[in-house]
């Protein structure tokens, strides 16, 4: 419902973060990722950020070398999802400070924690950066 999956993929097509909110087997995931990434990476800057794939839509945006792809149901508001992607990037930026692809790679679990605070079961939970980051900051302080 709502969001089906969130992927972060670099320009070469390697997955840097994958969070699925519906069940797919491993082969299905790889096939899906391959297909979608090919489609999105082939598009130019001027084209719109929404791609229709099978029975759902992909909303994507490129930030430096990372593509953020979010797969959503057909009824979802695409512009809102674009906002959400931006919110995600800003949150990570606030936490890591000038976030880049390597940050996501080496601190994968932190990125996951952040995402978990923001999206649960395909629905957006929290949109305030402070609220999202506070448990993570607490954990960092404790460990």
């Amino acid at each position, binding site marked *: *419902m709502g969001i089906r999956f969130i992927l972060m993929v670099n320009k070469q097509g390697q*997955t*840097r*973060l*994958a*969070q699925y*909110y519906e*069940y797919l087997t*491993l082969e299905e*995931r*790889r096939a899906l990722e391959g297909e979608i990434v090919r489609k999105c990476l082939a598009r130019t800057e*001027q*084209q*719109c*950020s*929404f*791609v*229709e794939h099978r029975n759902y839509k992909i909303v994507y945006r490129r930030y430096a070398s990372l593509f953020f792809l979010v797969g959503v149901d057909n009824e979802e*508001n*695409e*512009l*809102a999802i*674009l*906002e*959400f992607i*931006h*919110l995600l990037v800003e949150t990570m930026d606030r936490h890591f400070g000038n976030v880049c692809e390597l940050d996501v*790679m*080496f601190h*994968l*679990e932190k990125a*996951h*924690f952040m995402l*978990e605070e923001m999206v*649960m*079961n395909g*629905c*957006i*939970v*929290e*949109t*305030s*950066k*402070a*609220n999202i980051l506070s*448990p993570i900051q*607490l*954990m960092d302080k*404790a*460990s």
Partner: protein
Amino acid sequence: MNPFSSGTRLRDMIRAIRACKTAAEERAVVRKECAAIRAAISENDQDYRHRNLAKLMFIHMLGYPTHFGQMECLKLIASPGFPEKRIGYLGLMLLLDERQEVLMLVTNSIKQDLSHTNQYIVGLALCALGNICSAEMARDLAPEVERLLQFRDPNIRKKAALCSIRIVKKVPDLAENFINPAASLLKEKHHGVLLTGIQLCTDLCNISAEALEYFRKKCTDGLVKVLKDVANSPYAPEYDVSGIADPFLHIKLLKLLRVLGQGDADASDSMNDILAQVATKTESNKNAGNAILYECVSTIMTIEENGGLRVLAVNILGRFLSSRDNNIRYVALNMLMKAIALDSQAVQRHRATILECVKDSDASIRKRALELVYLLVNESNVKSLTKELIDYLEISDPEFKGDLTAKICSIVEKFSPEKIWYIDQMLKVLPKAGNYVKDEVWHALIVVITNASDLHGYIVRSLYRELQTAGEQETLVRVAVWCIGEYGEMLVGNAGMLNQEDPITVTESDAVDVIETAIKCHSLDLATRAMCLMALLKLSSRFPSCSQRINDTIIHYKESLVLELQQRAIEFNYIIEKHQNIRSALVERMPVLDEATYSGRRAGSVPAAVSTSQGAPLNLPNGVAKPTAAPLVDLLDLSSDEVSAPSSSGGDFLHDLFGVDLPPASSQPGGNHAQKSGTDVLLDLLSIGTPLAQSTSMADMLSSGDENKSPADILDKLGSPSGPPSQASPPVGSSSMMDLLDGFGPVSSVPENNGPTYPSLVAFESSSLRVTFNFSKQPGNPQTTYVEAQFVNKSPNAYSNFVFQAAVPKFLQLHLDPASSNTLPASGNGSITQKLRLKNSQHGKKSLVMRIRIGYKINDKDVLEEGQVNNFPRDL
């Protein structure tokens, strides 16, 4: 330090993987790591557990199987420290899913964690539950989650709300428990809780109607107030996105209002003000603002009618459409498709902009715009729209051409005001994009052409002209060749000239030239060339002066290496040389194809069936004909055992007319069964070279077509049930064919006796009635017996309402066909016949036996006769 020991830190492993240059290297590294991790797991190593799990997650993300780590997750979750728990839960969510049984083991841990004192741990547990719980877990833990909905900490409340959504989805019965708590969540101040509370309410409304009612009554006003507050709220740095306070909350509120207002006038009324305010006051120069406007428009379109608001909405959409941002335009096009259902006038105003969008450089926008245009078409604007679309067809991308062609063709078909316009448009489309035109489309075109008898001359001349310039477009060539074949004399004689035509002189040999060029062209496929041969045959009859030349061409193809062409060539040549007298009768004009039947067939057919109705040539037992046969097909469909028709559910009967599958297996099994408009059906009639079995099956088909249930079937008239099955009475139309059959003496009188014969049996006899059974069997099918029952009235009074019923024991299957009539004339002056089919699953061990019951009315009195038939021949 050995980089592959389990002591590796996560980042070192990542570095090692990144350093791999090839996939094989990467696999090797991953394998070593997995081995190390597995070793660590079996040793029950505590210290590095969470590190190992982190590594496992990374490996999982790369796409390698990691199920051996699942138990590790459980152990980590059960450990007391927070970091371990954290990683454990994360691993749980990534590596496991609700279908694994391992999940059940976690239930207890989660339950304990839900009551933990540390609220972060409670949050973790809620998160995990909310993401992957299964139905059983949901049921078990629902009460806990309910309690947590009222927890003091807002973070927990918000997570509990989302968790409840999943629970309610998994176990809809529990929905009632959550209605009240959900309603109280709507009064929260904390945005996070509010957001999730609204989400919960929306989902509850979707799942349970009573929840919808409840929320509608109690909460609509409250929600309107909340939206007002949010919209008017001052600058709040935390939730601000580019100047707008918490757009996500706006959007979710609008969505819930949409659900509540849909179908309910009161609720819709209360929302009108706030919707108007949001629609007018929101800034639209930022994406966030546009997102809100989009949602607002969507809501306005869905709730009950309010003229002013609707106008507002359509204006916003118009503004979106002219924006330069592709995203916005895409979204606007999407919305307009829904708006059309409500207010098509308003959308028509934007037609020009939408047409522009069809030509846009962005594929997604093009697609949406095309669909929208398709919805916009009506009788008044169809001509201009089609013109634009066809003009664009020329310059469009190849990937897009297919879609565009399909849409143009269906628009043209649905809305064409007059036949000539339809044909004109198709004549424009075919040369430009003939290769993309689907078969059913050009078949439909042919149907229309045959019906437009006054336009035949015009059509064939236009096609001739087009063919000169665009001879590579497959479909164009097919249609043109067919028409030239059929209406050749009109082409040459300039018959039926319309006012707007320029005169064109075409000699007979020009026409033949054109077809010969087509047949020699190797880029055209087999079906087209086969059609060319057929057209040549027709022309040889219509243009006697070219007959010799045509014959020479055909002789040339007698040596073709392609079976289809060779066969046709041989047979046509035979006709031309030896059967001059019947040639003209053979290639007479096609009868007018019935548009109504055809469009009915098409409407009823499964779209996929059209081109996939081929399959392998099926070897069906005689008499199992296709259930939805079009009358004309059965008539012509003589060698039909292998014809695709049975698998085409209703599909394209014209395509059977152009007889796709080749003549039956006597020549080649599993032969050429690609989609070809191959054998013109008339050909089957002339299967001179094929053995008698072919003709026998032909007669069988005619007669056993009785088994066919379709009442509208011409075949009912054909193989009249009252007569013995072997006699085929003259069919409707195409009398020439039956004459031919008569000409082939042995064929027509071959009775349906292709098996051992059995003596007929008097099954039942009383003073007033005699029932006789005639048997026949199929040669390859000893278990099935076809019985023809004949009823004779021995009394001097006629019987009416005659009904025959039969019952058989379990090892037999009985199938009764309708009787020839239900009135039995007196004193044996006529009889009723009825066919039965008996299948004996114990054939050879038990013989047939049957109980029969006959009911009829004599002099307005009902009579019932019963009996048992025991005297069936033993070996049936």
